[in-house]
């Protein structure tokens, strides 16, 4: 008999259950599969009611984040062979988010947080003409490039101890994206963006445990972004104290 592995999948339908329960499914332990393939096997062959988000199956759309054995993972980027077939894999929705259904979280709070940090180029475009690009050297590009790689998968939020306590916290990905624009040589909106960020307390609760950076599947380094931000706003704060006529 071909080898199999057991998935224990968190099931929750708000109309019927008050609490999530685990349901167990036996699937082939196919060496070419990622976790998401195993879930799709369940959905296609065993139980059409198991519910999760996915789309690209190539680690770029950011839809398929879930907890696997208690760790937040991008399930289309994790091979089944990372797991021992004699033990079940527990699949649950990303933690610290409200659950809509089974493995689907409500991520609308992130969309708000993202809008709040003004993730767009801010400048009054006197220099811009439609025919000519702004110059940006490869070195200037490298200054923010890593922070622009975020796929909004929410995995870092699920690993963030501050979010666990304070759901209002802007959080790792949104701050990384704010920094992505702050550090872009074409942008002139840093101060405006900082105002939005400063309005939230959570930032100062971040203790640099760096869990977000450890779990990020795209090497975005949100912890680094937060650190940079704190240093930046501390210097701005100092500047405004020392030079009251300062930069603002």
């Amino acid at each position, binding site marked *: 008999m071909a080898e199999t592995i057991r998935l224990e999948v968190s099931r929750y*339908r708000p*109309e019927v259950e008050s609490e999530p329960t685990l349901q167990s499914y036996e699937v082939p332990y196919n060496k070419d599969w990622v976790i998401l393939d195993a879930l799709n096997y369940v959905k296609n062959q065993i139980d*059409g*009611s198991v519910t*999760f988000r996915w789309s*690209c199956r190539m680690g770029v759309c950011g839809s398929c984040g879930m907890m696997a054995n208690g760790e937040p993972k991008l399930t289309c980027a994790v091979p089944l062979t990372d797991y021992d077939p004699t033990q079940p894999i527990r699949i649950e929705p990303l933690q610290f988010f409200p659950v809509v259904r089974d493995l689907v979280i409500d991520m609308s709070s992130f969309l708000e947080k993202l809008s709040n940090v003004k993730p*767009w180029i801010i400048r009054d475009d006197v220099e811009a003409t439609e025919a000519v690009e702004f110059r*940006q050297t490869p070195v200037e590009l490298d200054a923010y490039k890593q922070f622009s*790689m975020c796929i909004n998968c929410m995995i870092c939020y699920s690993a963030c101890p501050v979010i666990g306590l304070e759901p209002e916290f802007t959080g790792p990905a949104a701050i990384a994206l704010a920094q992505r624009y702050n550090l872009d040589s074409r942008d002139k909106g840093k101060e405006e963006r900082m105002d939005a960020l400063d309005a939230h307390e959570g930032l100062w609760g971040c203790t640099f445990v760096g869990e977000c950076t450890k779990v990020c599947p795209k090497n975005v380094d949100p912890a680094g972004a937060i650190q940079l931000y704190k240093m930046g706003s501390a210097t701005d704060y100092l500047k405004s104290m020392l030079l009251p006529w300062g930069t603002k």
Partner: protein
Amino acid sequence: MASYSCDLLIVGGGGAGLRASIAAAEARPDLDVAVVSKVYPMRSHTVAAEGGAAAVIKSTDSLEAHAYDTVSGADWLCDQDVVEAFVDEAPREMVQLEHWGCPWSREPDGTVAVRPFGGMKVSRTWFAADKTGFHMLHSLFQTSLKYKSVKRYDEWFVSRLLVDDGRCAGVVAVEIATGEVHSILAKAVILCTGGCGKIFPFTTNANIKNGDGMALAYRAGAPLKDMEFVQYHPTGLPATGILITEATRAEGGWLVNKDGYRYLQDYALGTPEPKPVHRTMELGPRDRLSQAFIKEQERGRTLEGPYGHYVNLDIRHIGETVIDKKLPFVRELCLKYANLDPVHEVIPVRPVVHYIMGGVHTDIHGATPIAGLYAAGEAACVSLNGANRLGSNSLTECLVFGARAGRAAAEYVDGAPAPGAAVEAQASDEERRLRSLMDKTDGTERIADLRSEMQSTMEESAGIYRSGDSLAAGAETLGRLRQHARHLKLEDRSRTFNTEFISALELDYMLELAEIILRSGEQRTESRGAHQRTDFPARDDDNFLAHSLAYRNDDGSVRIEYSPVTITKWPPGARVYGKQ
């Protein structure tokens, strides 16, 4: 059933939809614009585009050259007025995206860098390493957040267009999170719902690419144009169909057969040089490269693995530094999904379904024959791509024609009457239809089984080479599958985020489109671009220098008509690749 309304509704939040929404919001800040999308916009499949987006920017290039490459790449089936507008507006659109923050790769002096691409005579493909679509989509999405007049309905699935008295008046949509059915009334609607690669088994397309918008428009009475033209990309990973971008070849990669021989030299694509040469060998157009693969397979010179025949893509000689700088995603994908490191090993690849040249018939402004209904992006066929799209023209197409449709629809809205009463009745009808499907308990057919049978049927009957017989046989099987699809077995009884129900609707769309692809293919008794008939191997300009238009008859069957191709400067000629 709740009813919402806006002035202009855009269905789809990918590259085309977002560009259209911004164009409309900028042209008319006073309008209520809304974007409805079945996934969060940044999940749209534009996110997966890797290689780049074409637009003339360097002094060595010319609009004329870009136009000629596009026309000859299209095997003359494109409309040349559309091509001219496209190449002309492309640079402005790309600079606009640059101003919106897209992290384009750069030259040392800070100007944008360009790379060669298949079928292009000059390097003109802008790129953001090999995650161009990802960066374009996120730049567009993040920029769109600043337009407060644009409202979003995220994770709502559109199931029907409302058309009253020949005018489009909005849509009916399911709010996926709750299963509620709503109408969104609008004076104009733009369909930007993307392609339909999931009709085929091996594809670079995501789970969400089911051709929804094409089916919606077709059922509402709009014709679908040139649907027989399906693009196979020559280099996908065999097991998963994951794309290995053409940029690998632009940076110098070679395609080799089982003997390590660069076999494209045997197929009128020029002679091999160590460095990449424009419009030659590995930088030939996609239709020719995919066809060469099949010929090579017939000669017994491909390799065979667990997922069928394949050849090898060799990029080792490009070296780790360039690979990491310009093709980092390719390396990541190979390591994660093919278990190999392309710095040291060859990559097994095979042709996989990638893109559909056909789509909802529109004019040069994105308007369909139904008043108030527009379309742009891969869902549309404005006739830029003809019989074969050139790589990197599609992302730019989303920008140019997304913006055009956004502006045209915003202008149209002014004179348009408010939706009439008949629309309410249609919406209630649709709600009843959806409810009865949701509550269906007596079905026997698994969605997944029908879907995979449809997919294998399409690969067999409408693949890289087709014949009258294969297409007819395919259509027959599909007729049977459509019968079976009336008895779907739905196991999910919850209204909350019911993805099984959504898949049932998507399958229904795909089955209808599959039949249209087959019927359009059957009637085109010539070979052109991506449509290669073994029983009619030559191009036939006398009879088929024409667009096919598929209409839906009242009894549900397909009717094909033809309309002429617009020629401005480039009379039909031979497609010549390789050094001249």
